[in-house]
């Protein structure tokens, strides 16, 4: 499976993501600069974490209005898988590829620590390596991860099984409504999540709980390095 990591200025977990995709998938992803003329033909497009354009204005807002996002939107409509982690999630919501918004953490503070996630829907390409209801560890590092959607939107994403990951065991770190940590679009081929599975994929990270997300998408190739 071929993957690409899209980089906007200010993103800073692009290297972490490239490493994770390479270690788990066996081949390195194509790294695409947002102004590159072409987004290669890939099966998985990843928007990694960071602070695109400093997260000035609103997290992800400026990157979401770039021409590259129009290209990604077209690919998503054709069924290509898109994964947005942290800032990637914020960009996808700002670009309208995912419903709702990510607001400032309820504590108003940046928070980096480990939380527990439970799998609310194991029937997505992103979560199929996990069992429904399974609880796993995952690190977070963000300032604006407080997921919010109006009542109607919330009901529809809940009813459609679009909520894929929730903060579990009282570890909601940011005030997200319904403990939402990750959601897909209605079609199920675009996932956004605040936690960083790419930072928990090998023994040196203290665990491998995050591998499943990539293994499900890339096929489980085991290469530690």
């Amino acid at each position, binding site marked *: 499976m071929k993957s690409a990591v899209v980089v906007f200025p200010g993103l800073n977990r692009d290297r972490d993501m490239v490493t994770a995709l390479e270690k788990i998938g066996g081949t390195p992803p194509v790294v695409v600069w947002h102004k590159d003329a072409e987004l290669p033909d890939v099966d998985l497009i990843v928007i990694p974490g960071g602070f695109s354009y400093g997260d000035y*204005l*609103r997290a992800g*807002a*400026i990157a979401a*209005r770039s021409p590259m996002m129009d290209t990604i939107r077209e690919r998503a409509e054709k069924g290509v898988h898109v994964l947005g982690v942290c800032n990637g999630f914020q960009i996808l919501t*700002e670009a309208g590829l995912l419903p*709702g*918004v990510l*607001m*400032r*953490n*309820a*504590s*108003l503070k940046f928070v980096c620590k480990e939380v527990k996630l439970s799998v609310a829907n194991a029937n997505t390409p992103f979560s199929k390596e996990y069992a429904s209801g399974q609880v796993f560890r995952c690190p977070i590092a963000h300032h604006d991860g*407080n997921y*919010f959607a*109006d009542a109607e939107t919330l009901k529809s994403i809940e009813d459609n099984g679009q909520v894929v990951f929730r903060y579990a065991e009282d570890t909601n770190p940011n*005030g997200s*409504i319904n403990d939402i940590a990750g959601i897909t679009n209605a079609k199920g081929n675009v996932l956004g999540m605040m936690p960083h599975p790419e930072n928990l994929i090998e023994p040196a990270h203290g665990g491998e709980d995050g591998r499943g997300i990539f293994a499900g998408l890339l096929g489980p190739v085991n290469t530690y390095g």
Partner: protein
Amino acid sequence: MKARVIVTLKNGVLDPQGQAIEGSLVGQGFEGVQSVRQGKVFDLELEAADALAAETEIRRMCEKLLANTVIENFDIEIIG
């Protein structure tokens, strides 16, 4: 031409910043405070034929970037 845009959260949309500030103000002894909502202001300078043209242009900027219209309202004031 100068203009000021004020972007505020729609009614019913959660405002974690406003809430935290409210709590902090009350905690600091400002007991009369009943509610705080936080928004943004943008002071723009731009070239435009006239006030109307400026306003039309700024409205488009708000819709395209300055406001997230899913959760925010905006107000434009042309200062001249």
